[in-house]
């Protein structure tokens, strides 16, 4: 029988290395993809997904089961870490440029996808989170509602609103005269 995240966490806090490894293997890929879509940078995503687990094993980790699931807690850490990266002061600009040069869309080699990804990253966070989780991670509305701590209806309306913003962007991208201004 598969142990729950919370049970693995409890065992991990008692020093069980296998429990930590299991938790890492179970949650790290999703966290990496989440951070990748949030930041657009594989390097940042690697750092963030790693740092989430460093923080989890640290003494400062204060996960409280009564306040939500461990998965939700981990996504919360990842979201905050990406925020920190995004709010880097101007001195970190060269690093940001490196990230920009390394964005996911450019790796894909598809201009539309690259532009879409940039737009996604510029969306307000409340829309970006649900688009990433619902459409890129293909999680159910219920799952996402649990992860972000909002009602299902809110998740659905945010997703529709976010997609409308992206669709409008795509429409502009498809108009030949506006491609260069995008």
């Amino acid at each position, binding site marked *: 029988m598969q142990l729950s995240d919370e049970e693995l966490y409890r065992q991990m806090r008692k*020093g069980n*290395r296998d429990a*930590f*490894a299991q938790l*890492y*293997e179970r949650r*790290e*890929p999703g966290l*990496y*993809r989440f951070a*990748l*879509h949030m930041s657009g940078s*594989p390097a940042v995503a*690697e750092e963030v*997904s*790693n740092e989430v*687990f*460093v923080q989890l*094993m*640290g003494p400062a980790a204060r996960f409280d089961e009564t306040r939500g699931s461990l998965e939700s807690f981990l996504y919360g850490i990842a979201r905050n870490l990406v925020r920190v990266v995004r709010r880097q002061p101007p001195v970190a600009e060269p690093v940001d440029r490196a990230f920009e040069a390394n964005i*996911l*869309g450019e*790796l*894909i080699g*598809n201009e*539309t*996808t690259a532009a*879409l*990804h940039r737009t996604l990253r510029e969306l307000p966070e409340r829309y970006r989170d649900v688009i990433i989780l*619902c*459409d*890129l991670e*293909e999680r159910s509305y219920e799952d996402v509602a649990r992860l972000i701590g909002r009602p299902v209806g809110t998740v659905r309306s945010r*997703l*529709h609103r976010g*997609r*409308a913003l*992206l*669709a*409008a962007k*795509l*429409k502009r991208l*498809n108009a030949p005269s506006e491609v260069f201004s995008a």
Partner: protein
Amino acid sequence: MTCREGIVELVECARRAGTGARIHAEPGRELRAHLAVCAHCSERWEAELQLTAQFGVMRASAAVRESPDSRRRALLQEFSHRQARMPIQTSRAWVWTLGTAAALVFAVFVGHEAGRKAARTSASIQTRGARVEPAVLYEADAALSSDASALSSDDFVAVPYTPPLAPGEMVRIVRADLYPETLASMGVRVDPSWVAAWAADLPVEMVVGEDGIPRAVRITENNQF
């Protein structure tokens, strides 16, 4: 069907198209009819399908990832390293816990012994006397409660270093026979001549508070006291 209703449905249809569920991804008859007559919704339908397709590309590209094994190993190593440091902290915590527990036990023991000693003294005052007559209860007046030495005015001698009586605290007059050394142990000055005069026990009256502690004492058959 209104545009608003149509858009809600077409977004869900477009999302399902991305999952490969073609049957459910097809717009219903009503939506198809609406798309046929509404250019705005029709454009949106196309954009939504394109968006879904782009998300598919993004998902596929995110799935391509170099093996994070080195990071995983480093992280697990870090975990083991931290755990190796933990027992020291744990043992220190145990030392502190045990130390605190020992201090508490010692404090309780000392307190208990002090209590027993006080009880012994009190008991000895009452039991070592040859006779102990029924107590008489008095309510401590303000003067008595604030300062036991006030009792000295009526040839009572205040027992030094005793806590003051609380306002309204009842006091008892206890008659007893005490050894001179018992009186001395209560802090009362004992004249050697009394010892000679009374051979062994001295008949005394004590003012005893509700806590059983004598506050004042007088020798009843020796007014030289």
